[in-house]
């Protein structure tokens, strides 16, 4: 699908582009200062800051929204974002399989890869995915979507994020019940234990291909039309566009920079890049995910006013985005990842001229964002992750829990789609 952005951007005046470039360069310079300061403290802080910036930048440039990937299948019969998501999962799966085959060469011994998101699978996985799916559609974005939209100036996304923090805290109060009743005894199901690494990878890729065929068939049934948007006639402009012959190396360079920083990215390269970044992050330390870190902030805030949940049973034994009790420290490598995602999106939006403080005018939207956020947060708490940790990093971990969480995300998104149509 041809994106609308390039068309619009072609008509942006040179002066506007220059102003945006200066704003963006200032933001990137500030990011570089944070890098230097963070590195002086701990090299891992600096590394996670850079990963965060990269994730935020790509999410914003491609508007890579997991909530719409699921929702638009049901709402519009569109699979644009879902296709990018599936490619990201495929790239991630190949990379994770390579890394894990080094970590656990012998799959018959019942050993698990130490940091992959192979999580206990049970009712909590399904209910977590279901609640998360409903919440993300109500709030108009999942946790990563809310973070990049916070960077673009969407005030409702700040409200949604506050809701997520609240929901994670509520889930922490109920965690010990979930642990006793379900999670402690739930099996961790890792495909390579039964199929070996190559078999597990092949099954995962076939599964992704099957989902791809399903969403393409939905698109065909919906009769997707990609209409010629008639803002297309580019105004007289000195800008080189993809259709014009460039004349010099400088022109070529300018075009490339514009495609990277100003025009919207197509979703497929973005999905592949996000999948690749996830593999790099997994190689460096652990897969992409951050709701555990966000829960650490909620629990720390609750402990300031003395309402922190008590000790959380079993969390030290679990990988992924499981709840993190407050450790009394402020900084943590994951904090740099989350702030990096926000700041990377902010800088990307500035450069593209897409930053704007957007305030919903209907009061119901604030309630929706907050309520959706709380529901999402609770789902992420018991599901041990969000669309990233329990899904985008779990399917590449060749873990069954990623598929179950994903199926219930879809069901939740379907329910959410019905709800939002009633509160138009």
């Amino acid at each position: 699908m041809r994106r609308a952005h390039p068309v619009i951007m072609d008509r942006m005046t040179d002066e506007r582009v220059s102003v945006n470039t200066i704003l963006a360069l200032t933001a990137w310079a500030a990011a570089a200062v944070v890098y230097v300061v963070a590195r002086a403290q701990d090299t891992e802080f600096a590394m996670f800051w850079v990963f965060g910036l990269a994730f935020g930048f790509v999410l914003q440039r491609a508007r890579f929204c997991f909530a719409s990937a699921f929702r638009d299948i049901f709402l519009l019969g569109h699979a644009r974002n879902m296709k990018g998501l599936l490619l990201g999962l495929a790239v991630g799966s190949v990379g994770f399989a390579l890394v894990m085959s080094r970590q656990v060469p012998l799959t018959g011994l019942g050993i698990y890869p130490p940091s992959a998101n192979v999580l206990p699978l049970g009712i909590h996985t399904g209910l977590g995915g279901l609640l998360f799916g409903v919440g993300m559609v109500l709030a108009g974005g999942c946790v990563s979507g809310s973070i990049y939209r916070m960077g673009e100036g969407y005030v409702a996304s700040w409200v949604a994020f506050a809701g997520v923090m609240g929901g994670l805290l509520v889930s922490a109060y109920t965690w010990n019940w979930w642990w006793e009743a379900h999670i402690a005894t739930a099996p961790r199901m890792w495909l390579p234990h039964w199929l070996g690494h190559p078999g597990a990878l092949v099954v995962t890729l076939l599964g992704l291909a099957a989902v791809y065929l399903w969403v393409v068939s939905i698109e065909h049934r919906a009769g997707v039309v990609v209409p010629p948007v008639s803002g297309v006639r580019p105004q007289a402009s000195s800008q080189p566009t993809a259709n014009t012959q460039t004349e010099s190396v400088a022109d070529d360079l300018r075009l490339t920079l514009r495609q990277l920083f100003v025009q919207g990215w197509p979703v497929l390269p973005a999905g592949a890049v996000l999948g690749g970044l996830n593999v790099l992050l997994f190689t460096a330390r652990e897969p992409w995910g951050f709701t555990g870190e966000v829960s650490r902030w909620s629990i720390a805030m609750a402990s300031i006013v003395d309402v922190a949940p008590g000790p959380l049973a079993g969390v030290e034994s679990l990988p992924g985005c499981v709840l993190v009790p407050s450790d009394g420290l402020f900084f943590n490598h994951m904090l740099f990842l989350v702030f990096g995602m926000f700041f990377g999106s902010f800088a990307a939006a500035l450069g593209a001229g897409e930053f704007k403080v957007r305030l919903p005018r209907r009061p119901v939207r604030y309630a929706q964002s907050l309520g959706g956020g709380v529901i999402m947060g609770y789902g992420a708490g018991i599901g041990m992750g969000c669309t990233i940790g329990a899904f985008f990093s779990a399917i590449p971990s060749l873990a069954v829990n990623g598929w179950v969480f994903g199926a219930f995300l879809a069901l939740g998104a379907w329910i959410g789609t019905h709800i939002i149509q009633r509160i138009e």
Partner: protein
Amino acid sequence: MTPTKLDVRGEICPYPMMRTASALKRLSSDERTLEVVTDHPPALETIPTQAARLGFRTDIEETSASEWRLTLTRKEAETEV
């Protein structure tokens, strides 16, 4: 006749598209155009698609930083002209 206007600035995803589709369905049969103002870039893709399904053509114009006016015109009206 001045075209019906719809201002969906500030709306969260996916309401710019949903409210536009509803407004198009509510247009009386003698109204040819709907003008939509939005500051939600993803709507620049979803609105033209939904509009086309309902028989409208879309013109997009950037009116200021991160704000666009979409003019949706009924396709039959066009062919009559």
